[in-house]
């Protein structure tokens, strides 16, 4: 077997095992939440016999291992159950929210990733001079400001004062695509500002690291232009760390933007999860946890695979 293929298979297997472990943690975590599910559904109307009936109906009397396996197999078949609070099918209502979250994340990534890499390249090209300092200062500043504050500033300036973009990012089914883009303009701006600094700094550091190598010196001696050296010779060798940090930020865009969602009233996964946690709606919490874990592990897996594939020593073994 080709060593790269072997490495890839190993990585994927490891990812699946991790996901399984995460599912155990999620299940155990929701089990040790205070309060009994049947009790929380029935509330003050609970009588001993209705409680017993409901517990039997929900399978709460089975041993935890049986319940875990039932839940896991159902989830594998796409059946995430129904929400306890409003009886909606979790897979379909969460699907919509997940779609919205991914849409926002992708839009933010489409702007942020190329911008971060280009800014990183420029910072390296003019290392220590004013363009480098300006880029570093601004991106560090936007990373340091809490995202809700960035959001409020964006709303105040762009929505209330100048009315360029709407402050409400509520999107819904059947909304025309251009309206959607207009609605999410502000959250995208904020998310880009939040993730830009990290990715840009990492790009800069990784390339600067490579710039110390002997072959870069050779390229300089050949008389190549500085920017050609950076883009053609240094960047490909710096891809592995850059991809890692890009994926980490993409994962953040999917699983960690609840604050931005709240500020801009965006119907994404974060708000959905928080609402159900506060109502102890365990099946929804489990489903969200599983999806988040899958996204996180999946994106890191992609980062690993790209790093492996970008390494010529692994692609062309002796």
């Amino acid at each position, binding site marked *: 077997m080709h060593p790269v293929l072997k490495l890839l298979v190993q990585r994927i297997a490891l990812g699946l095992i991790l996901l399984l472990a995460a599912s155990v943690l999620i299940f155990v975590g929701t089990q040790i939440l205070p309060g009994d599910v049947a009790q929380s559904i029935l509330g003050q109307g609970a009588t001993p016999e209705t409680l017993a009936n409901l517990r039997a109906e929900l399978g709460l009397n089975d041993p935890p291992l049986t319940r875990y396996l039932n839940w896991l197999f159902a989830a594998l078949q796409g059946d995430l159950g129904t929400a306890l609070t409003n009886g909606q099918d979790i897979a379909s209502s969460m699907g919509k929210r997940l779609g919205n979250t991914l849409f926002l994340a992708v839009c933010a990534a489409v702007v942020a990733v190329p911008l971060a890499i280009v800014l990183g390249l420029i910072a390296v090209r003019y290392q220590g001079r004013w363009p480098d300092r300006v880029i570093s200062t601004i991106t560090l500043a936007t990373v340091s400001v809490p995202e809700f504050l960035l959001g409020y500033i964006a709303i105040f300036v762009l*929505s209330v004062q100048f009315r360029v973009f709407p402050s409400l990012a509520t999107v819904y089914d059947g909304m025309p695509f251009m309206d959607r883009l207009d609605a999410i303009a502000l959250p995208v701006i904020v998310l880009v500002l939040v993730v830009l600094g990290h990715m840009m700094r990492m790009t800069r550091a990784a390339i600067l690291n490579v710039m110390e190598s002997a072959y870069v010196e050779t390229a300089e001696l050949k008389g190549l232009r500085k920017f050609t050296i950076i883009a053609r010779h240094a960047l490909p060798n710096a891809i592995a760390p850059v991809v890692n940090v890009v994926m980490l930020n993409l994962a953040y865009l999917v699983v960690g933007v609840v604050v931005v969602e709240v500020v801009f009233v965006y119907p994404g996964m974060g708000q959905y999860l928080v609402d159900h946690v506060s109502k102890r709606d365990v099946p929804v919490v489990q489903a969200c946890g599983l999806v988040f874990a899958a996204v996180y592990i999946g994106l890191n897996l992609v980062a690993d695979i790209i790093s492996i594939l970008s390494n010529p020593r692994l692609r062309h073994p002796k």
Partner: protein
Amino acid sequence: MKDDLAKLIDRIDAARLNRRGFVGGAAAVGALATFGAPAFAADPVKGGILKMGLGGGESTNSLDPAVAASQVPFHICRILGEPLVDVAADGTLEMRIAEAVESSPDAVVWRFTIRKGVKFHNGAELTPADVLATLERHSNKDSSSGAFGIMEGIASMRVDGDVVEVTLADGNADLPYLMSDYHLQMQPASSVATPDDGIGCGAYKVVVNEPGVRHTFEKHADFWDTTRGHYDGVELTVINDTTARMAAIQSGQVHIANRVDPKIAKLLARAPGLSVQNVSGRGHYIFIMHCDTAPFDNADLRNALKLAINREEMLDKILDGYGSLGNDTPINSSYPLFTALDQRSYDPTAAAELYKKSGHDGTPIILRVAEGAFPGAVDAAALFQQSAAAAGIPLEIKREPNDGYWSEVWNKQPFCASYWGGRPVQDQMFSTAYMSTADWNDTRFKRPDFDALLLQARAELDTAKRTEMYATLSKMVHDDGGLICPMFNDFVEAVGEKVQGWEKNGVQEVMNGLAPHKTWLA
């Protein structure tokens, strides 16, 4: 657990039940001047879409009126449904689905004559049988209805021609008021099995239902009351974040925003294109002591603490004037049969004397509080600590997390911050929280003479006698209870300048949920 949920609901309600006639901020005065006149001068304009940005909605919400708890489901109930009777802004009864109501002399048997020609959203005509089915569903414990407590007092119900007859276990002169509860929206008998299908007989019907995100409605063409429901449609956007909600009204994306933070109300009123409206309600912010737990089982200590709180300062600093002074009774002038008691005010000297007389050992008294107890609760507790310290009473503030506050602290710990949303009538307020046997007797106020007088007042049809009885009951709580009530809070809302026909109605927030029915766009 549901206790807490219901309580939570109630707590959310409180923000809606803010109270206070009018606060003389210059901005607010200006707003009133521009608003009052055209509302009566102009005829309603038909058409347009009303957009409301509302806090208090979750992805867990359902269209079933029985389980409505927070603000957004409340508004959905009011938009989709019609109750038998409604409470008008001035506290009088307004006939809706019931055309007339009459009772037996002992207030035990009540007869509601049902209006003809009312059509549901599915085209069917409303019959007394539908009314009966709706009421029966809310009387069933399994429906988890928020109105279950009201329905519990009903012994039997039956249809008699055009009349639905309700027989109570004990006489209750307030029954029509109780029937105005927002959960009790009439639904077709065919919806009993699917109460969340959104079919009601209100002015608008459901188009889009995305809980926690947005709800849209279109005009119900066959709506029976032609004087209401001027819009072609209504759009509710759930905006739980206060700043986002204020930004939405300032940038003109919504016409009405609820729950304006009193701290920013005066600033907001300066923004162009909108006005800030406030109206008094029955909600109040409180500190509660368990009368049966040491050291609060000592009446002198309780009264020392009541004298050691500076109500004026709190009203000014916590509500920025958008409220009114509390007087250690849950009843204020919003209630129909209100009698004013002598106002208790801050008196550190008298408090110090009573404290000494109580013989308390001087160890700090622990006051539990969370940010979610009521808006500004932590600050209010700090003010209380300061004013009590001046009277030589040591308070120790213990901050609790919001999560679990209503299940672990409220109604469990002997001294904590809390709030009540108020109730339509005195009887209901006292029965819910001050009767010895009440589940939510969160001050552990247990006096047999109080209970007996409360039951007597309930069946009393002579208004003068009743008023006197309620004054006595209020005074018992004021003098002897574990309730420290520094303030009643207003409903404060932001309204865009295009909205016409706004009325002051403090029964519930946003004109008691009637803004989509009674206002129009200029």
